[in-house]
Structure formats: C-alpha cells, structure tokens
C-alpha cells in the first residue's frame, strides 16, 4: 500500500504506535503471570493472607 511521497512518515507513525501498544499489552500480560506465579509459590510454602485465613473452616 502506497501513500504517496510521505509513505515513510505514515508507516513510521503506525509502526511506533503498534510497538508502544504491543509493549503495554506485553507488560500487563507478563506482570499478571509473574504475580500469579509468586502468589502460587508463597501459597505452596503455606503463606496465606489474613483474609484467606478467616475464610478457612
């Protein structure tokens, strides 16, 4: 697809936007996985929050 004499500027603008948005998505997805993994590890070692203890019978 050609956009005339300013194709480079248009493609660069869309590429930068895609790169930044992809970075944001990667940040939230990887951060979520990391926090879930840490919580899983802590729970395996028997560490629970006070709110969780209250829920236990």
């Amino acid at each position, binding site marked *: *697809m050609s*956009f005339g004499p300013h194709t480079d500027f248009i493609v660069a*603008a869309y590429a*930068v936007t895609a790169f*930044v948005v992809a970075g944001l998505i990667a940040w939230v997805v990887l951060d*979520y996985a990391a*926090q879930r993994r840490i919580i899983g590890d*802590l729970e395996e070692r028997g560490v629970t*929050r006070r709110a969780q203890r209250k829920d236990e019978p």
Partner: protein
Amino acid sequence: MPVIDLANPTRFLALVNRVLPWLVAVTALTFAIGFYRAMHAPDDYQQGATVKIMFLHVPAAWLGMMGWVVMSAAALGTLVWRHPLADVAGKAAAPVGAAFTFICLVTGALWGRPTWGTYWVWDARLTSVLILFLLYLGVMALYWTAEEPGRGARAAAILTLVGAVNIPIIKFSVDWWNTLHQPASIVRLGGATIDASILVPLLIMAGAFTLLFFTLHLAAMRNEILRRRVRTMRLLQAQTLAEARS
C-alpha cells in the same frame, strides 16, 4: 451487585476477571473496523495521505489527557476517602496515560515534518503536552520508588492534582496563544469542521483507543492488587519466621 461492593478488592478482581475477556474482544473488533475505515478514508485536499496519521495522533492525545483526568479522580479518592482501590487506579493509569501521550508526541512530530516542515516547535500546545508526559514520568517515579505504597500514593496524588491544571492549558492553548498547531476542529462550539468521510473513521479509532485504555487500565489494576497481596504475604511470612526464631 451494588456498586459499593466493587470497592472491595476481591469483588473487584472477580468482576475484572469476568469483564476483561469481553472487553478485549470488543476492543480488537473496534480496532479492526477503525483501521479498515482509516486505511480507506480519502486523502485530505491539503495534507494528502498524511491525514492518516490523524487517526492515531488525535485519539492518543485525547487518551493522554483522559488518563490524567482518571488519575485526578483517583487522587481525590486517595487523599479525601483514603480508599486503597483509588490508589491502585491512579498507579495503574499512569503508565497507560504516559504511553498514549508518548504516541501523541511521536505521531505529532511525524505528522508535523511533512505538513509544517518541522518535527518540533516550542509552541504552547506541543510544549504543554510534553509537560504532561514529563508529569506522567514524575508520578510514575513517585509510585514505583516509594518503599511503602501508601506514602508514595499520597505524594503521587498531590502531584497529580497539581498537574491537573495543565489539562485545560493543553485544551485551550491553541485559543489562548498564537500556535503553529491548528485550533480545535472536532470538539468545538459550532460542531466539527471535518468531513464525515474522515470524521467517522476518526471517531471509530477514538472509540477503539478508549476501549484499549480501559482494558489496559483494568488489567493493570488487577496486577497491582495482586502485587499488594504478594507484599502482604511476604510481610506475613517474614513476621512468622521472626516469631519462630524468637
């Protein structure tokens, strides 16, 4: 579910887990429609094909400012009601708002070179948006470098409310000062001055960017709640170990 129940982090997490997949799907669909319409929009009679950059630049500018408005509302929640979710909302919005402001600045420079003949000028609109970006970085530094989340949140909330004065300056800078940046052509008294063939794709892209903002914000809020749970669990673990040793 009463709205007040969402102030409970556990219930909020349950709601986010339910809503997020739908929000992701609607955001992707809106982007697909918006991108298709943007690519098939006619060239502008003066700017030619470079008007396609507007479909990114204008929504990013709106969302950059909206991010600060969301953070300002959250800052009030932190300082006035001292609600932990308000603090979470403020912290989660900062990187998302900063990213949209960055997109606005870069796409603006790439649009400015072929239309104005320069990437950058120190005019009121461009400078006030750059200040917004720097304020975002400052707030993020306060949130992420504080050892105790509550203390960092209060400092960040104060900076957020002080920085909120920049939002009307950005909006009205093109009216108050003589700027290279064009005046408002969409949100203005008397209606938009853009033809429907370009305005409709722009509004669809703005809708897609707004959905993306809230999707990322909710996901980041979920991560922040989990991060605080990790902190609490580690503190409890350290306390248990200290008690066992004494």
